[in-house]
């Protein structure tokens, strides 16, 4: 008999959330993590729990996942720093205000609370924004958190129910339920969940690309920013697939520090700071919030998002009945981890899913990819 019912490859927030769901369903779970739990993209990102409406499927998944975060909120330890700060989507001009109203109507249709702010209300809510902005949309139930601590919490809950962390081993080969680690150790399980983020070496057919981002953390300035602030133009810049882009995106932390982002780049594989785009990112931040120029930044770093062509994560079974995937979350891995884990467990156990899981099925992608090759 296999030692595990399921082996989860990757101990990021998504892998840990999957391990938690699967152990809660009574399965014997092992988690293979080559480095530190929550030490990859999980640690590099901001930790923004946010409803996003860039596509109906993403809207459904983020609403579902945010609801699961809200259900979890009372159980989360203080180290997770979960705070329902709310997001304000900042509209620079009248054209963006039209988007604000459209977004508000869409959110209302899905019972997601939001409120339109005019220019004065925006200035009152966030006095450090520059004057003259048109307004914004506040989404009060969006939250911020510290993702590595959230991953650790999910893992701890899984371990409490018997999950085993296999740390230090890197899975290099996957054949059905057989996993070979770099040192030659082999593990066998009935099912394997590939949750290795932007590293798709185990399943090279996954259409995942690394998309580099930069962040800066400031010293402590309590009260400088109250909500997570994101320019509405973010949606435009984040969706440009080909070009490098920057957007104003600032997050308050419970210490009074701020995370300042964001940048998106394809094709830059190195972890070093790209001074040009980093500078452009900070200039963008200062355009919206001039006072940022006088703050002291204490550390900058980069990370890699796992981007897919349709901007949707890959969640569920593959053509190999033993292999499941939970990867490709781009910038929404923190938000979507609880929802993705629940969908994955539902599919593995044959339970009904609360939302339509079909847009995220990896098989569709595989079939789509093979069709593309046939027609090429």
């Amino acid at each position: 008999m296999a030692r595990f019912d399921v082996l989860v490859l990757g101990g990021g927030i998504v892998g840990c959330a999957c391990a938690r769901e699967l152990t809660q369903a009574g399965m014997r779970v092992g988690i293979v993590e080559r480095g530190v739990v929550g030490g990859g993209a999980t640690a590099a990102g901001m930790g923004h729990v946010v409803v996003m409406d860039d596509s109906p499927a993403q809207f459904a998944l983020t609403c579902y996942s945010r609801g699961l975060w809200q259900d979890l909120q009372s159980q989360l330890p203080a180290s997770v720093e979960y705070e329902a700060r709310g997001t304000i989507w900042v509209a620079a001009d009248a054209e963006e205000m039209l988007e604000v109203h459209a977004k508000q109507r869409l959110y209302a249709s899905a019972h997601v609370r939001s409120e339109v702010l005019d220019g004065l209300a925006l200035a009152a809510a966030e006095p450090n924004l520059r004057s003259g902005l048109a307004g914004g949309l506040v989404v009060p139930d969006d939250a911020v958190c510290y993702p590595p601590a959230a991953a650790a919490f999910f893992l701890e809950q899984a371990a409490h129910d018997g999950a085993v962390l296999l740390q230090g081993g890197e899975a290099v080969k996957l054949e059905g339920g057989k996993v070979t680690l770099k040192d030659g150790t082999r593990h066998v399980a009935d099912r394997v969940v590939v949750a290795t983020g932007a590293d798709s070496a185990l399943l090279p057919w996954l259409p995942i690309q690394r998309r580099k981002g930069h962040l800066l953390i400031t010293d402590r300035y309590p009260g400088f920013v109250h909500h997570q602030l994101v320019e509405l133009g973010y949606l435009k810049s984040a969706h440009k697939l080909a070009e490098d882009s920057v957007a104003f995106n600032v997050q308050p932390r419970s210490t009074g520090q701020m995370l300042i982002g964001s940048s998106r780049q394809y094709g830059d594989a190195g972890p070093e700071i790209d001074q040009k785009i980093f500078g452009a990112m900070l200039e963008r931040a200062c355009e919206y919030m001039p006072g940022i120029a006088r703050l002291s930044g204490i550390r900058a770093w980069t990370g890699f998002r796992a981007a897919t062509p349709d901007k949707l994560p890959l969640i569920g079974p593959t053509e190999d009945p033993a292999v499941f995937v939970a990867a490709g979350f781009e910038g929404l891995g923190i938000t979507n981890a609880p929802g993705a884990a629940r969908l994955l467990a539902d599919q593995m156990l044959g339970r009904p899913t609360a939302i339509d899981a079909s847009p995220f099925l990896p098989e569709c992608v595989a079939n789509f990819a093979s069709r593309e090759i046939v027609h090429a």
Partner: protein
Amino acid sequence: MREVHRISVTVNGCRVQVPEGSTVSAAMLNAGSAQRISVRGEARGALCGMGICFECRAVVDGVMHRRTCQMVCSEGMTVETQP
């Protein structure tokens, strides 16, 4: 002996006289004031005294996170413990 010229600065609302050339951290320590309060609520003050450890940060003339061990007091300066 050369006469020491004294200047006045305000530390947490109290006007104090310090010898010209004093660092801001010295002025605050002489006044019995912490330079800053840590995330966990502990009083902190200059440790390395050479601008490396950042323990001496305080609010100087309204600007947060000034390294007070690297700043010389000037007449009329206002310094506060950083929350």
